[in-house]
């Protein structure tokens, strides 16, 4: 939470990540061809602005230490990962531990017509790893994730089962999946079903 510093004393808010309930149900680490692990406690920001807006690019660079990525790509710094969503739209994922108030920082620095929206609770961030990942992605999505077409750093928004997802290639047999919160239970159940033979393990980080 960006405004976490303001949290009251009388309550210790209990955070539930989107995958909270599913996680408990599908722990099956033995012989799993696919491992899902959810990254919680991140700050997710939806950034809108023209790529031609140089002050906008510059402030992202200054605050998040990373360049706004080009079409279909993602970029990382020690502070944040940024994903291309559309010609004037990006998703920034910031580790709350390293940078607690990115919204304020960005807002302060950015000029012109831009939009910054905190969507931290709107998505579940999953790392999907293992020998079965390529097959899982092919089952779930119509997009071509072959390494020749979709190497590390590439990202794409596409269909995932009957939902949608933002998928990024991290490395060999290692992808990242960003799914809308309200769909995550469905998506997790779908993945478990699709991995029925090869096995699937769901954990948290």
């Amino acid at each position: 939470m960006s405004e976490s510093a303001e949290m009251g004393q009388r309550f210790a808010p209990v955070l539930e990540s989107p995958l909270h309930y599913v996680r408990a149900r599908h722990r099956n680490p033995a012989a799993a061809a696919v491992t899902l692990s959810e990254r919680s406690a991140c700050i997710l920001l939806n950034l809108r602005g023209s790529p031609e807006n140089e002050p906008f690019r510059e402030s992202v660079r200054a605050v998040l230490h990373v360049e706004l990525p080009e079409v279909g790509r993602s970029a990382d710094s020690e502070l944040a990962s940024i994903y291309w969503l559309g010609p004037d739209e990006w998703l920034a994922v910031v580790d709350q531990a390293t940078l607690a108030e990115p919204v304020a920082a960005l807002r302060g620095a950015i000029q012109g017509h831009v939009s910054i929206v905190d969507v931290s609770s709107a998505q579940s961030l999953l790392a999907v790893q293992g020998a079965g990942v390529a097959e899982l992605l092919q089952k779930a999505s119509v997009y071509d994730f072959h390494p020749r077409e979709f190497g590390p750093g590439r990202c794409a928004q596409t269909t995932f089962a009957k939902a949608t997802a933002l998928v990024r290639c991290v490395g060999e047999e290692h992808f990242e999946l960003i799914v809308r919160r309200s769909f995550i239970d469905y998506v997790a159940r779908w993945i478990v079903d699709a991995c029925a033979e090869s096995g699937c393990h769901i954990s948290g980080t």
Partner: protein
Amino acid sequence: MSDSQRRLPAGGRLDRKQKVSFTFDGRPMWGLAGDTLASALLANGVETVARSFKYGRRRGIVGHGSEEPNAIVQLGSGAATVPNLKATQVELYEGLEARSVSGWPNLDVDVIALLGVFARFLPPGFYYKTFMAPARLWMTYEHFIRKAAGLGRAPQNPDPDRYDKINRHCDVLVIGGGPAGLAAAREATRQGSRVILVDEQSEMGGSLLSLGGSEADAAQLQWRDQTLAELEASVDVLLLPRSTAFGYYDHNFVGILERLEDHRGLTSPGRPRQRLHRVRARQIIMATGAQERPLVFANNDLPGVMLASSVRTYINRYAVIPGQRLALCTTNDNAYQLALDWQEAGCDIAVIADTRPEAEGVLPRLARERGIDVRTGTAIIEASGRKCVSGALLAPIHAGGKSLTGPATPVECDLIATSGGWSPVVHLSSHTGIRPIWDDEAIGFVPGPHADGPVAVGSAQGIYCPLACVEQARTEGAAAALRAGQGAGESSSPSPDIIAALEEPAQALFLVPHTKTTSRAPSQFVDFQLDVTAAAIELAAREGYESVEHVKRYTALGFGTDQGKLGNINGVAILADTLNQSIADTGTTMFRPAYTPVTFGAMAGGEVGDLFDPERYTAMHRWHSEQGAAWENVGQWKRPWYFPVAGESMEEAVQRECLAVRNSVGILDASTLGKIDIQGPDAAEFLTRVYTNSYLKLAPGKCRYGLMLHEDGMIFDDGVTACLGESHYLMHTTTGGAAGVLGWLELWRQTEWPELQVYFTSVTDHWATATLSGPNARKVLARVCHDVDLSDEAFAFMDWNSATVAGVPARIFRISFTGELSFEVNVPANFGRHVWERLMEAGKEFNITPYGTEAMHVLRAEKGFIIVGQDTDGSMTPDDMGMDWIVGKNKSFSFLGKRSLERSDTRRTNRKQLVGLRTVEPNEVLPEGAQIVNTPDQAVPMAMQGHVTSSYFSPSLGRSIALAVVKGGRNRLGEKVFCPLADGRNVAAVICQTVFYDPDGERQHV
């Protein structure tokens, strides 16, 4: 022969050590691993495998693959039973149970066969000409017609198996794993392409698998093994045996059904039974081969009449000899190979009847050298035998093939094999509507030209010479790789060592003439499965059904589960002849998927049952479910409908929930409402264009309700928009409308008003919303929220504030859908359940009551608030809903839908308008959807005035209330109307205002 089976002592692609037992119609039998059900049946001497559908005639196996029209079986029983499989495509497994799907009481004595005598009175189309009188008996006639039709039986229980689906992309997809397909796939692979090779058979090799033991054949088989081994060793090649490419769709998309487990047993516990591959290919090579055509002659449906290439396959691949004494009738050299192999297997050949005037090719000469009786200019014109073939009639035939030139002579034989030439398998290449083209040389239709679509290679392109097939396939394989972006386009694999006999031209012959005319000769079958004869085709044409498509529909030619793979081209040729036109002009019927039938379950994949459609959950979902909430499906969302406590009925629960809100405080999960964050200097202008009212003066901290219209002026969404700050808004939409509204906003922004600077971001999932409603709402909230003054003065109705609720930063909106004092508390969803539980704790003392959508509906109806989609139906304007007050008439911009409100029909005064209805009898709750009339005693059709849109028992008022739309309703307050119900009662009600409770709206302003 061995073990009393018709089995050769050696050879075949079988595992002789593994005996497999199975039953057919209850009779125990056995075969060998590697058999199909068909080869095993033949090995067991089974001749009759079916009774024909219309005439009940005995039918035997004619083919060896997907073309088989007769040997249709039902496998197994119970939930896992599978109807209508072709025995030729069923791989044998231990314990297999097969039953024929025709013949009653059994195959041997079939009652329908008695009808055979009447066959001549059942020409095509006889249904249309009879069963007309008396009219009332038709449904009885139909009952029996239905019973007589149909093949197998559907299971009666849910499928025990699972199915799987996968999306694939490749550079080159090769369909068909015969020599041409193997050559093309290898070439494309060598060029660096991602390749998929599919074949519907159990192993790759296509027609090579039917080859015999000759030196030339052995060399080809060796080539197959080498090629396959190279493909298997390559990384980017996917080999899919037992996989049928069933449909070719636009832009090089192919559906492939892989049978993963069917060869192992009836069910596949724990593993998917079949898998659908959805393949998008840059390039496609069709190496689907060619289908041998049977010749059409009298009684050609007797068991024991088979395709020449099939007999050859049974001998060489399955080591089965389906007879003792063969009579072969051919129009070409190729079929002589069967005779040679047959003789090699040590069996008798009665005769080879070659329909051509002469046969001087390498193979015919070899046959003669081997002492086989080869008679040229001769055809088999009729098969004889009672239960199966016992002989054939031979007659000399005119070079043109249209007439006989001498008398018929009988020969004795128990097997007749025929070859009428080959039809390239053009199915898939025709699926997108590209018509195949008649090729005189190939004597068959070859694929029509595709712009960037599939390329046919090998026999599929009408090339029948094995070496030429492979050479062409190599070239096309390399070319395809190049078009897909790989390689240099030149073939790299060496030219194979294939020796093949040169063949002389074949003769174009389809229907073998008989001594009698077609209408009088014994039946000459064209389509076995549907009992379509040559005479039927002639008759259809005679009756005016001249288009080939009419013939198909009138006679049912090609309608079967084999889709006429054997019969269609013969049918076309016979029709062409009847109409005295060319085959090219006659054309084929339309080819459609599926090439062979596809299991529904596989098409559905895993997306059935629980996963049929996503269930969307709010952050508080588990809490509701722990409380035992009953659910309502709203779009994909699961929303609590009501929360019954022990022993309560729905009615009781809803009443309790409603009263709690009116009297103390209730809490509703409103997270599902769509929420769109809107930012930009032109945001207010934009909102003002898409809503009926204006947002230009909405100040930060304030909320406003709006109606959204489509350009046709009809309401399609509503909701509250809050001004969050300068140029920053939050729009609420209906639960079901969220995605549509966002698309709508983007549509106008991106396409029509790109100059407006505004961005939209969906935040529906980010926020969890708990609505506190009721006179004690403020007190509850005050316990967990300390940083905001919640008093009416500081925090007025239609205001919003940021605050901290239960330690969580929140946005609180003071808006109300119940008419009570309400606060909608929005917190990041990750804290949704936490905040909800704190609110529940805080409300304990006020007996805070969670309420569901049903109570919400009652409460809002008491206040006359509409629900878009329930009180509107896509044909309602704001004025119809009595909401003219929200339409900004003087906005500078003509907002979306405005102009439509001025059309002559939308200006009408007697349009249906929203009103309230009070039943005269206060306990009577009108059914929603009841129609309204002025007087109940009119004749049907009655003049309907409108209908009830919402109707409930209001616990607060102790009576029923309803909302309705009534023609000119607002001018008819106080009038009595009637709702005639299905049970015959006419319920009287009085038209009233839409607001039933707290008409002055005082309660929400406290």
